[in-house]
């Protein structure tokens, strides 16, 4: 049986792409091989480790458990798309730097996308909620303490930045 292919249109980090891909290629492989966005890391490839988590229409999902063809026409955000428009690190990225939330960095892209969506939904998480939010992501280096601290710090930075924006607007 020859390899069946299909044409897919994806908008990744705001940029539209059109590619002809094998129908059985998972989204994480499409991102890495066809779009050369290698920030998304592929760990277990069966949905357990969370390293490949991306945002599909703004919601975190496992890109290893999606076929590229299934998400034709959808919006995707990968770790490459998290930085702010002015080039600053996003609150979550900055928090990981501040709190030493990573060591080897392999699992980090999955944590960053997962937490970005989580603090938008829950801008003032408790430590318990922070821990539950990252329960679907495995890290073999940090022991999670610094990652949980990063979640709380990320929420703090996001609140600071949004109050800065409000102040700017109100002083105008």
């Amino acid at each position: 049986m020859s390899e069946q292919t299909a044409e897919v249109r994806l908008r990744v980090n705001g940029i539209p792409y059109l590619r002809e891909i094998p129908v059985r290629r998972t989204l994480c492989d499409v991102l890495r091989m066809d779009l050369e966005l290698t920030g998304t890391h592929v760990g277990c490839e069966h949905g357990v480790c969370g390293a490949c988590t991306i945002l599909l229409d703004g919601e975190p999902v496992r890109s290893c458990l999606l076929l590229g063809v299934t998400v034709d026409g959808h919006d995707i955000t990968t770790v490459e798309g998290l930085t702010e428009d002015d080039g600053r690190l996003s609150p979550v990225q900055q928090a990981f730097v501040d709190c030493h939330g990573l060591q080897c960095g392999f699992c980090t892209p999955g944590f960053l996308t997962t937490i970005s969506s989580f603090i938008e939904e829950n801008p003032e998480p408790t430590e318990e909620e922070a821990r539950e939010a990252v329960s679907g992501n495995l890290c073999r280096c940090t022991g999670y303490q610094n990652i949980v601290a990063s979640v709380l710090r990320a929420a703090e930075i996001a609140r600071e930045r949004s109050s800065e924006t409000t102040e700017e607007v109100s002083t105008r």
Partner: protein
Amino acid sequence: MKPPKFTYHAPRTVEEALQLLAEHSTDAKILAGGQSLLPVMAMRLAAPAHLIDINRLEELSGVEVDEDGVTVQALARHAHVEAHEGVRRRVPILAEALRWVAHPAIRNRGTTVGSLTHADPSAEMPAMLALLGGSVVARSTEGERVLPAEEFFVGPMESALRYDELALAARFPAPPTRSGACFDEIARRHGDYAMCGTGTMVTLNDAGRVESLTMSFVSVGDVPEVYDLSPLVAGAAADEVDLTAVGERAAEMIDPPADLHATADFRRHLATVLARRTTRTALGRARRAASGAQELRDEEQV
């Protein structure tokens, strides 16, 4: 590439999907959320020759709520059902159990109906369908039929769906008035497969005494059975139920398997604890529901 080769179909209508199913039958699998199917394919435990992707059938993504319960359509994602106001109001135990279904990233994609058709004895949704006395609507080119939970689950990972049938929707009936329900489970890590999970439903009579007590378990049997503990507690005042006896009876009724994650004895112990815990909470909720119903009646009389 992890999944084995298959021919991919992306039907645009339900009729087209049913035609494809009729045509390819035993060689075809439906792809909805894919959160169980794709891992199984990645591990090459399944190699369907045809994959029928229903993700473009947006007319199947709804959740409908009425007085009698909740209807969840084939493409409704767990996260959508869990967050649905109407679901939380009419069948709160369903939303409570959904919080235990894997991790948020999986719930964003996985579908509730898909979880039912997967019929995993370690999954929460089959136990919920059983406990609530729900059903699955199956359609093929031949017609439609409604399968009650007790007929739907045939064995571990096996449902009564025929190869040419698409599970269009699942119906979760609302519990009766003056009732309370609770779901809880114990896993090594939130979101992992439960070592044991328990859903419990209590109904009180007019006098505030226990009328019925039923339970369903996760990870303790091949199919989600509903156990009736009513004879043990019927007639007891809601605040005088012997919870220890309830826990012990629950442990006697089940025959849990032993595996890598927990021995049979440990699972039985967890079932005892969870039966006690969920019954206590369900009783409290039933009492609140009953006093709410009473107030409503009083208001009507005034």
